[in-house]
């Protein structure tokens, strides 16, 4: 380009020119054929480049949670454990707020002991399940799984 003004038409079109310089360049344009040609060239190139459209992705990116969702307290109880607990609670409640017997009958005593034994077994099972749950969660946390769909 032979124009002595040496205007940066790339910066002009790309929005990288200050307001004052932009006004000055715009004022110069009608007076200079070289600059008009240069500007048309830059605009033409950018206009052609705009023909290239974004492509769709072959698949989307998504991450899964590092922490496994925690079950609610009521979901942690399985029905067998829950019913056993309810029976135990009912027996205890009956013992304290029922007819307030002066002495516990041998049959009831035996039933309570049997239930307590069963409770202990269930608690042991619960502990094992809890331990398993923790180890699954640790294994899950150990990897940040990347999945795509």
């Amino acid at each position: 380009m032979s124009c002595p003004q040496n205007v940066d038409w790339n910066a002009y079109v790309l929005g990288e020119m200050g307001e004052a310089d932009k006004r000055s360049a715009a004022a110069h344009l009608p007076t200079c054929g070289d600059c008009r040609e240069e500007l048309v060239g830059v605009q033409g190139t950018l206009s052609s480049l705009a023909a290239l459209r974004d492509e769709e992705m072959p698949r989307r990116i998504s991450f899964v949670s590092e922490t496994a969702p925690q079950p609610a307290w009521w979901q942690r109880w399985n029905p067998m454990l829950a019913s056993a607990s309810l029976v135990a609670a009912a027996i205890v409640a009956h013992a304290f707020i029922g007819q307030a017997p002066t002495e516990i009958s041998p049959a009831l005593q035996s039933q309570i002991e049997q239930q307590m034994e069963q409770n202990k077994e269930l608690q042991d099972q619960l502990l094992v399940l809890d331990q398993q749950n923790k180890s699954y969660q640790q294994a899950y946390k150990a990897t940040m799984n990347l999945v795509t769909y």
Partner: protein
Amino acid sequence: MIFREVEDRDLIAKAKRGDVEAYNLLVSRWEKRVFNYLLRLVRNREDAMDVSQDVFLKAYQNLAKLDDAGKFAGWLFRIAHNEAFSLLRKKKPEGELPLETGGVGTGLLPIELSVAVESALARLNADQREAVLLKVYQGFKFEEMAEILECPVSTVKSRLYTALELLKTSLSPQALRSSAR
């Protein structure tokens, strides 16, 4: 654009606190831009897809290091740039790559022009191509590009202007007409 930045800030803050769903939302807002940037740079869809996944995984792992959420775009593209060039370095030196120009027909339909542009971009070296991608297609300012590319603004401008000069020749009406024949 302002709303987008505000929403991004919110999502970034949530993701920093471990909210993966918020991060997934953030990914969904940026993945197409990052993918297309990488696609033009590495010029292979599967590579671009794999690198995109790596970029967002790295971004997630390093999100705590992002001090200013307003600079997320530049920071993300900086990761993408590093990952893309790491891949390009592993592959053969660029040299003269074969161009897929077979799709150009006799006229200048949009799809034909798109193929011609793709070919013209492929003829640039990786630095020049990246300068065009960041400025023309991603709309970054020179200063932001300098941060992403870790080089002076003068280098950014030099790469971009050289690229535009080359593109002006290869995308001139005469060149397009002759390639369409």
